[in-house]
């Protein structure tokens, strides 16, 4: 088990390391002069441009820039944003709790709605219920979540006036979380259904049924418990999807998380902030997937005992 955790941690570190390389290269791939592009909205003299270039280390060879960047990153310094001249890490950390809250709330909605829909469809496989649930799921998969967001906004905020349009309180969380959660519930419903169908077909479920155990016991004690294993395995990827989806949804509802910040940074061509965001995002997703993989291992004895 310790070895498994160590392996997952090493994989996560490699991901983060590759992200640092990608982020350093990013600014060099910009066609034209990145410094001029970044400061195109400001009044600058050619001397100032050269000074900024030296300050950002962009006059150095790429390998030295990388070492300088790594040196700073290891000290927790991701540079300063162009707009507002704020420390990038501090800005990201200020905004991150909002994104994390949105992601976790959506994950909860996705698991509860998608999981039960998929479980129900698998249990009633081949019936009208199954067909209905899966039709709902494929429609959900096809629906752009920013559109779903606008529809929910139209119904619950503008027409019924039940929920606020934008902001950062608990009531403001409901619509974005529902938008992101329902969009992903559809994916999860399809995955859960096929995982549960595999389990319902297995001998231990049939044995449990054959020996006359009550149906609810068979369902919850035997089937659902082993069904959880593949579902938890999918959550790692789901978490990454939700974090990615949050970028769009935060912009629909003016939810002040890192996603909204990232889009503003792309518009302003604020490269230090974009670089910081990508590195930050990669780190969060990598660490989350370690946590989820370890949970998965705890649930599945085959992995816990090294197969």
């Amino acid at each position: 088990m310790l070895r498994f955790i160590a392996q997952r941690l090493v994989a996560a570190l490699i991901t983060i390391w590759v992200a640092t390389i990608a982020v350093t290269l990013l600014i060099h791939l910009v066609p034209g002069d990145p410094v001029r592009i970044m400061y195109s909205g400001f009044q600058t003299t050619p001397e100032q441009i050269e000074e900024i270039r030296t300050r950002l280390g962009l006059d150095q060879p790429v390998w030295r820039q990388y070492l300088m960047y790594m040196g700073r990153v290891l000290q927790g310094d991701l540079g300063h944003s162009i707009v507002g001249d704020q420390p990038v890490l501090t800005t990201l950390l200020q905004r991150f709790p909002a994104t994390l809250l949105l992601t976790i709330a959506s994950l909860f909605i996705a698991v509860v709605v998608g999981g039960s829909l998929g479980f129900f469809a698998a249990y009633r496989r081949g019936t009208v219920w199954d067909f209905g649930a899966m039709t709902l799921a494929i429609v959900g998969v096809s629906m752009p979540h920013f559109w779903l967001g606008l529809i929910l906004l139209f119904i619950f905020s503008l027409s019924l006036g039940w929920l606020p349009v934008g902001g950062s309180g608990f009531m403001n969380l409901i619509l974005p979380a529902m938008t992101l959660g329902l969009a992903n519930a559809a994916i999860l419903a399809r995955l859960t259904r096929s995982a549960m169908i595999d389990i319902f077909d297995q001998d231990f479920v049939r044995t449990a049924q054959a020996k006359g155990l009550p149906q609810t016991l068979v369902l919850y004690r035997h089937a659902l418990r082993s069904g959880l294993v593949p579902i938890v395995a999918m959550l790692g990827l789901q978490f990454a999807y939700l974090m990615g989806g949050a970028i769009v949804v935060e912009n629909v509802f003016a939810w002040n998380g890192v996603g909204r910040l990232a889009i503003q940074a792309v518009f302003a061509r604020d490269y230090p902030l974009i670089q910081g965001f990508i590195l930050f995002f990669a780190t969060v997703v990598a660490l989350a997937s370690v946590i989820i993989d370890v949970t998965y291992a705890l649930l599945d004895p085959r992995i816990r005992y090294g197969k």
Partner: protein
Amino acid sequence: MTTETIEAPARPERPQRAYAALFRSPSGAVGLVIVAVLVVCAILAPYIAPHDPLVMAAGPRLEPPSLAHWMGTDQFGRDVLSRIIYGSRLTLMIGTIAVGISLSAGLLLGLVAGYASGWTERVLMRIVDVLFSFTEIVIALACIAILGVGLVNAMIAIGIASIPFYARVTHSIVLVEKNKPYFESAVAAGASHARLIFLHLLPNVIPTLIVIGTLGVSTAVLAAAGLSFLGLGAQPPQPEWGFMLSSSRDLISRAPWMMIFPGLAIAITVLGFNLLGDGVREVLDPRQRAR
């Protein structure tokens, strides 16, 4: 007499059988019809669109759906239906170009990694795995940060963002094909690397990739609409559906039709490609059909 009834009818050619099966699967048939309608709209746009999609004041501003304007007009008096019909051209272009980029690059990467094995494979697939974990939207954002805002750049960004996915799929197919007797005997016969890759592996990888590419169009369309919605893709006055949705945001309560129809167009298109992809998969993998 009896021999005639027992004798099986001549089997039609394979592709025909596949098309017939596609039509028998309900999801495949519905998907095919939706995609066909979309293609027809894109080709015949100038003939079927009632108005010019870019001409301002084709009617009164913000007019609700009526007989003259079936889907109403926007804040500049442009006909929403005509914009949606013309938008199908952009959508199909985005879908095919983005998938084309990711499919060809992913195919190459996956083929090389799977064929080479050893260190080349390990390093390439490790990089692909890492990129995969960044998620597509973040890679696309990084590409747009590099290239700048615009519809063409958004297409390229989405294409690049999906390369890791296609590389993974190709790699896994190559690994299976490499262990089949036909490939092993070609290796034993001393076939050259180029021959092994292009004559033996490639033809066996492509059919599966076509199916996955069909499903990929839906993801690409959704992603492009998302980027345009954020203002990073299509720019005014392009009649792009995602962009139309974003310009409806401030007018939702006054002109909900501006929000409803473009969103519906995106959803139906994506649904069409999803159903088509599901249908094709069912045809190719009969095990799925039983479920």
